């Protein structure tokens, strides 16, 4: 199967003459359709830069990013906005819901800006909300929702447009462990049942243990890849901790 996301020799250099910071250097990887991929790394490793490049918020210095057959580094202006709203779905750490809209309207907004026919909006919102167990909270405003519910509303908003790729940036970062577990269970279920492709950035090993495959990034390059295969989640969690520990140990050697 063709990969849904191909990152080829990606480079990102910040700053101009005199002070150059290499955030990403020659990073390449593929994500297959229906995969649930995690990206891990310490802060400053370049994982956020990578996500910003893939989500078209930032532009790479060199290399290409191909999503569903389209090279997004070649897109400009309106085509970029269009690509972002039609092909990508986002879940952010601070859920980024509009506080003036109800949960229902927040989810529906993703459809209305796609100019979806008004008649089918309510059905589609109900369905997406059902998948994430949100039926009871649809009429509430974000300030009336718990952190976990907010994140699930954001997830529903991300999947409702049937994007090629869902990008999640530390989705459990602001959640307590119970809500985090519930959100991840539902994301994994979403991935299983609808075949949604998810790329998730996290620094938390527990969160990462729900993924199929984890890319460890260090100093802007791909450091190691870990596959879950048929391991159960506990075992996978232990392996992840092992890699994280090893990477931190390497760092200590430098000292």
């Amino acid at each position, binding site marked *: 199967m063709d990969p849904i996301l191909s990152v080829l020799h990606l480079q990102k250099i910040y700053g101009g003459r005199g002070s150059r910071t290499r955030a990403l250097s020659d990073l390449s990887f593929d994500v297959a359709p229906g995969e649930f991929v995690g990206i891990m790394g310490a802060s400053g490793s370049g994982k956020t830069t990578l996500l910003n490049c893939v989500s078209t918020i930032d532009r790479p210095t060199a290399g290409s990013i191909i999503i569903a057959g389209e090279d997004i580094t070649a897109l400009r202006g309106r085509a970029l906005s269009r*690509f972002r*709203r039609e092909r990508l779905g986002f879940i952010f750490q601070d859920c980024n819901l*509009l506080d*003036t809209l109800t949960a229902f309207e927040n989810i529906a*907004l993703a*459809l*209305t800006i796609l100019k979806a026919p008004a008649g089918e909006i309510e059905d589609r919102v109900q369905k997406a909300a059902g998948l994430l167990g949100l039926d009871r909270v649809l009429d509430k405003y974000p300030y009336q929702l718990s952190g976990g519910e907010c994140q699930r509303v954001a997830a529903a*908003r991300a999947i409702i447009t049937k994007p090629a790729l869902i990008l999640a940036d530390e989705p459990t970062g602001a959640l307590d462990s119970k809500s985090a577990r519930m959100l991840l269970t539902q994301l994994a279920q979403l991935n299983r049942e609808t075949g949604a492709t998810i790329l998730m950035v996290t620094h938390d090993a527990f969160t990462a243990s729900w993924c199929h495959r984890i890319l460890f990034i260090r100093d802007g390059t791909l450091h190691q890849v870990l596959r879950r295969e048929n391991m159960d989640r506990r075992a996978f969690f232990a392996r992840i901790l092992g890699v994280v520990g090893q990477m931190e140990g390497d760092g200590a050697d430098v000292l």
Partner: protein
Amino acid sequence: MFCKLAARNVKRSIRDYSVYFLTLTFGVCIFYTFNSLDAQPAMRYLQSTNAGMVGAILQLMDILSVFVAVVLGCLILYANTFLMRRRKRELGLYLMLGLPQSKVSLLLILETLLIGVLALVTGLALGQFLAQGLSALTLTMFDLRLDELQFVFSTRAIGKTCLYFGVIFLVVMAFTGLQISRTKLIDLIRGARKNEEMRQIPLGAAVALFLLGLALVGTAYAMLLIRGLLRVDDLFWLMLAMGTAGTLLIFRSLSGFLLRLAKSHKALYYKGLNMFVLRQFSSRVHTTYLSMTVICLLLLLAIGITACSVGMNDTIGQLTEQSAPYDFTIQNYGGDVNPMDLPGLLEKEGFSAGQSLQGTVDCFLYYNDSAVTGISEDESGAALSLSDYNALMELQGKEELVLDGGNLPRLSETPFCTGSCGFERYVVVPDDMTPSLSVRRQVWSGYYAGDKQDTENALQAAMKELNSDESGMLKLETRLDIYIETMGSKVLVLFVGLYAGMVFLVAAAAVLALQQLTQATDNIPRYRILARLGVEARMRDRSVLSQVALSFFLPLSLAVVHAVVGMKAANAVISQVGRVDSVRNSIITALLLLAVYGTYFLATYWGSRRIVRGNS
């Protein structure tokens, strides 16, 4: 170094300052224009003939200017507070970097000074143009044509404007300095934190409130139209209260009502960002409905005052025509016992009636006696013979009013002399009836030959001499006199109306603009989310435009409706003395309104768009 930082700050945030700057500039401009009246050619002309009236106008303008300065001062303080709030973090940073508070205060004072001087210069320059326009307007009102173009330039007004606004700036600077020296760093750093809590009334209640508001306003309208404008009693205040309360309720519930309406039209509600715009609007309404009501009422005042003063003006103009059909009228109150040969007497004083006058009619006014005429003395106390009446009408060039002698005696209302004769109506009687009536006074009317102003001066001089001989039994009234008199009140009404109307308008628009800009700042994160979701810049701009347009044009449209109804009632009052020329004054009002309000609208839209685009 410090001045450089201040100058750079102003340059960088010139668009943040735009509404502040606009308000200052408009304020200076209006203030200068209405204080430079003394330099207008029309006013100088008026002064040469009627100095008392000009003095009264200028004095009233002076008093009004104090009031205007206070309003503008408060407005500028409000705008300044808004700017400060927007720059809290920047100021906090200066303090955190170790700049002493006194220096930060100094920095802000310098910035205020810079903006103030800039606005003063721009406003005065703009004021020059506006003053020319106003001068041209007064000149056309007087039907004066000047041989050469006279430039209106009043050093007195410039000095006064500088003085008043200097004081305002000083107060603002003192206030700014005080504010900085008393704030705590923690508050400045946390300046961006918002404590807006969401409170919304249920949709059903909103609809009910909206209908109640409509009913209240409707009742107030009905009362106004039925009772008229000028019956000031308890019911009048009740009417005002109901109108205000209705307006308040309409604004309080409008967003909920619109939301309800839109929600039942799914194609509309689920189209683009409509949902977002409506929700945005209704989430703000509990903080804005009060100011929207105040703004609506201010706009109503601005529209009403401007329109009525322009309309009144035309009415007064028509009155002059009516009350002065001849160039002059001399009434001899001693005519019953001592009829005079007025031309002969004037000749003795050096005024040649034969050469200087043309088309004169000398006649007697009689006491009306109901026993003779059959018309009650309550109806009218004066009578004219048919031939005198017809001669007078012919002199006026009103052939169609000449009577053929049938149907007499009868009442007439057509003015038969220039100035006041003391009667609204008089009886026209057949010539053969006059011997049985007693003479009331002698009336001599006519037109000037040759240059009107010269003849007027000569006649006035001669009459003064004559009257001192005849112990004041003669009264001369001339068209030019009456003209100047009515013109004076005309100008007074127009100036006061325009001045007050424009200040109210600027106040309303500035408050609205500042509120919108504050909201735009609060909206930055929301628009950032929209951008992340892939909403194009164009679509976001349109959403900003709808939000600003909603808040600008909702109060305006209700104010226009109020004003239309109010002017209908006012018309009923004014039509007793004349009629408001509604088309012309509506257009003038609309243009003035559009220019000022439109400028604020655009400045606010651009400002909000820039704030929202900022760093998304």
